């Protein structure tokens, strides 16, 4: 049984795309949160099938017949063609929240299937295996930041180098500053969903045109880190606000107006800043706000969700975490003892 955390990305998102980092180092600063995806890999000696359990249950004779794209590609790539295996997934949150869940799933899956084959992956190997699965094998137009964030866990700066290597710098944030930061964060799930790749595939073609902006985005990680370590939460909020404006300018298709309205409503109610998590198409909206203003923001959001008929819209309290994707239980008995 493997557990992978979801993540909040703060600055540098988009610079983890190879079209950018092959020309200039990309950088992302993110943190994992206490919302998880679980993957269970289990041998089924009496069922000569491949079973995949998620919202649906699939029961097939060969992995090529599996509809779940990630599971199918992973099994075929790892050459797990001997039947008698079930793979199930469980999640604290639904898909498309903008918290990197699909990549968290990919990391957990690769770690789990490798463990099933008797192989222990390092955090880097698990991140790379998941990135390869999603980007190379499935051709998704995404970067590697989410796979690294989920695999390593905690507050990190990831640097994506032109030679495809990745440097991981763990941010050494003490408990007081971490908890203080948490106290200023309000996260709302909007209930609006749109797959990340639809926004990202469009963003990809924009890298050439906005190369300088991307360099600024990659560099902004340093300033964010300094402000974070100094406890300058207001400064962080301002940076996120500017980052969101910049991100909107990078996308040629209109941003989701409703999400933008939610963001502006929060700012109107007293938030210092914030961002739309994920690729800007929906999912969660995060605000940074002084604790005394948070009651008003909560009320404003509640009213907003009601007015705009977003019944799934609600607050999602979170805490930051330090651990990444872990095997919680490995029940590999051999030779009957």
């Amino acid at each position, binding site marked *: 049984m493997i*557990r992978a955390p979801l993540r909040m990305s703060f600055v540098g998102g988009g610079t983890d795309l190879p079209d950018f980092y092959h020309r200039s180092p990309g950088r992302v600063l993110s943190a994992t949160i206490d919302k998880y995806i679980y993957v269970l890999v289990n041998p089924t000696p009496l069922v000569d099938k491949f079973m995949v359990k998620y919202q649906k249950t699939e029961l097939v004779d060969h992995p090529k017949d599996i509809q779940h794209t990630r599971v199918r590609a992973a099994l075929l790539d790892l050459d797990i063609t001997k039947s008698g295996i079930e793979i199930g997934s469980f999640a604290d949150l639904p898909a498309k929240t903008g918290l990197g869940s699909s990549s968290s799933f990919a990391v957990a899956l690769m770690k789990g299937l490798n463990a099933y084959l008797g192989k*222990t*992956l*390092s*955090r880097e190997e698990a991140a790379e295996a998941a990135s390869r699965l999603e980007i190379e094998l499935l051709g998704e137009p995404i970067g590697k930041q989410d796979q690294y964030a989920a695999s390593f*866990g*905690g507050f990190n700066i990831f640097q994506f180098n032109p030679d495809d290597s990745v440097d991981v710098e*763990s941010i*050494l944030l*003490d*408990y*007081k500053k971490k*908890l203080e930061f948490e106290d200023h964060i309000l996260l709302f799930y909007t209930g609006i969903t749109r797959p990340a790749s639809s926004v990202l595939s469009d963003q990809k073609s924009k890298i050439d045109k906005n190369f300088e902006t991307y360099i600024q985005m990659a560099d902004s990680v340093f300033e964010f880190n300094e402000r974070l370590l100094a406890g300058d939460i207001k400064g962080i909020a301002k940076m996120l606000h500017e980052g969101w404006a910049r991100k909107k300018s990078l996308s040629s298709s209109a941003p989701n107006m409703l999400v933008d309205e939610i963001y502006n409503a929060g700012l109107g109610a007293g938030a210092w800043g914030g961002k739309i998590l994920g690729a800007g198409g929906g999912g969660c909206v995060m605000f940074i706000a002084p604790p005394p203003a948070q009651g008003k923001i909560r009320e404003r959001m509640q009213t907003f969700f009601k007015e705009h008929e977003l019944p799934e819209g609600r607050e999602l309290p979170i805490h930051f*975490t*330090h*651990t*990444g994707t*872990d*095997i*919680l239980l*490995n029940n590999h008995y051999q030779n009957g003892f």
Partner: protein
Amino acid sequence: MEEYIKQFLARTDESIHNLPIKEIAKAFNVLQAVYERDGRIYVFGNGGSLAMATHWVSDFNKTVFSHHLGKQVKRFQAIRLPTTESELTAWANDEGFDMVFLGPLQNYMREGDAIIAISSSGNSVNILKAVEYAKSCEVPVIGVSGFDGGKLNELADVKIFVPTEKGRYGIVEGVHGVILHLMTEYFKDYFNHVMERRGRAD
């Protein structure tokens, strides 16, 4: 006599002054991560280092939470290896002294754990055997070493190295004691802070 004392203290001062602060901070992150995944921390060393490992385990498991022992909260699970003298002597007598840490570690260690290896020279074979095993299982290694750091400092994921003249065990071990207490104090203050906040929220 006073001159001797001053010299010793000056050397200790210098070692403390040159401590790798970032590495100690990284160790805090590793310990916090282990706690979150319900893992265990195995700690070991030879001679005085074993005594420190034993001392640290009692502090880390209890002192960190000592103001709130009545409350049902998840605590750290730090375990000194070998856990009993019988285990120590059984491994040493039957399999050799090189196996006294690796042997028991193989019984206990799981993917979610971490180890703290304490060795002034950083070159004790029994320590290195256990460290190499942990590394082969991708379990994070916090290496607490002295002198020139030895092989332990090379292998460790978190390199807490107290640079000192070779053979100055007194200084190295004294500073190791400070570092281990620092770990306990950090988490004690952290935990107290969380409990106070919780109290205010109720």
